[in-house]
């Protein structure tokens, strides 16, 4: 079953990637905000990455949503699950593209809505997040979303699993 093309929260609309997302996404990818994600990256890599987002939707029927401001439509970031590696659960991302949009809980709001959808509508049992050990902001969100750190042997990367079934029982 495919994920919804659009999700709506109090302040946000999450939708599939579009061509016009490239410039703001590129600015993010070229900034030091991607320092914990292997960046900064070039424009060319940024284009291929956004194409990756779009392609994952086509191939898997779910993927990274572009998080937009519900009032203005402005793209703010991305959130949602990927599945590259079948040996681990679907892997979450939540990123705000500009520091100006931090501090209001927008990344958590977006990620929480995708998790609600994955649990309630798709029946997924669990997702994971792999986060650089120095990325305190992202680790805090993982914990707020119910993530539990699990053993993971990958250098400076920590893994958090977020059990969705338990959330449903609450």
């Amino acid at each position, binding site marked *: 079953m495919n994920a919804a093309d659009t999700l709506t929260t109090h302040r946000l609309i999450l939708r599939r990637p579009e*061509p016009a997302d490239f410039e703001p996404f590129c600015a993010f990818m070229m900034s030091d905000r991607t320092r914990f994600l292997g960046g900064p990256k070039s424009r060319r890599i940024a284009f*291929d990455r*956004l194409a*990756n987002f779009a392609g994952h939707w086509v191939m898997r029927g779910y993927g990274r949503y572009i998080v937009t401001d519900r009032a203005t439509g402005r793209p703010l970031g991305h959130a949602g699950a990927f599945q*590259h590696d079948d040996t681990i659960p679907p892997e979450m991302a939540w990123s705000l593209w500009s520091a100006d949009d931090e501090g209001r809980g927008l990344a958590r709001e977006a990620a929480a809505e995708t998790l609600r959808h994955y649990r309630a509508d798709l029946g997924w049992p669990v997702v994971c997040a792999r986060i650089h050990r120095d990325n305190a902001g992202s680790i805090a969100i993982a914990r707020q979303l119910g993530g539990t750190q699990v053993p993971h042997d990958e250098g400076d990367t920590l893994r958090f699993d977020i059990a969705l079934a338990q959330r449903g029982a609450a």
Partner: protein
Amino acid sequence: MTLTVPVIETERLILREPREEDFEALVEYSASDRLEFIGGPKSRYGAWENLLAQMGHWVLRGYGFWTIEDRESGEPVGRTGIIRHDGWREPELGWGLFNGMEGKGFATEAASAARLHAATEWGFTRLISQIHPDNGRSISVALRLGAVLEAEDKLLGEPCLIYRHPDPRENANAA
């Protein structure tokens, strides 16, 4: 926004959208020295990212690379289509055959069909192909397609020959 990729049939081949079932052939191809001139070889993960990016290119640009399928066997034999990564001077006609599929004229047949579709449907009447000067097989395909050497330049730090294709609608009319 969903992916609608046109299907093109030639005498021996079908050009259709990239699919996950193409992945293993792509992994094998990506790991081989056949990617020497186009940024490879790539790991299994690199091949996966490449497959996703190929699909996403259609979404972002409205055109992209098809998987070439052998009508007789149903097997994927390679890729061709129009690509414009960020930083590309203009859209480019490209082609690549998976391992063991060379020597049958598949690249020429498929790229010719892609080129005609690009001209008639998307208005790309005089496409370029950017080819490494040491990539003799690909240069041969460009020449068989009637492309002419227009310039020498660099692409991603590597030397590159820029071939310019004729307007395929003229050939189609003349045929």
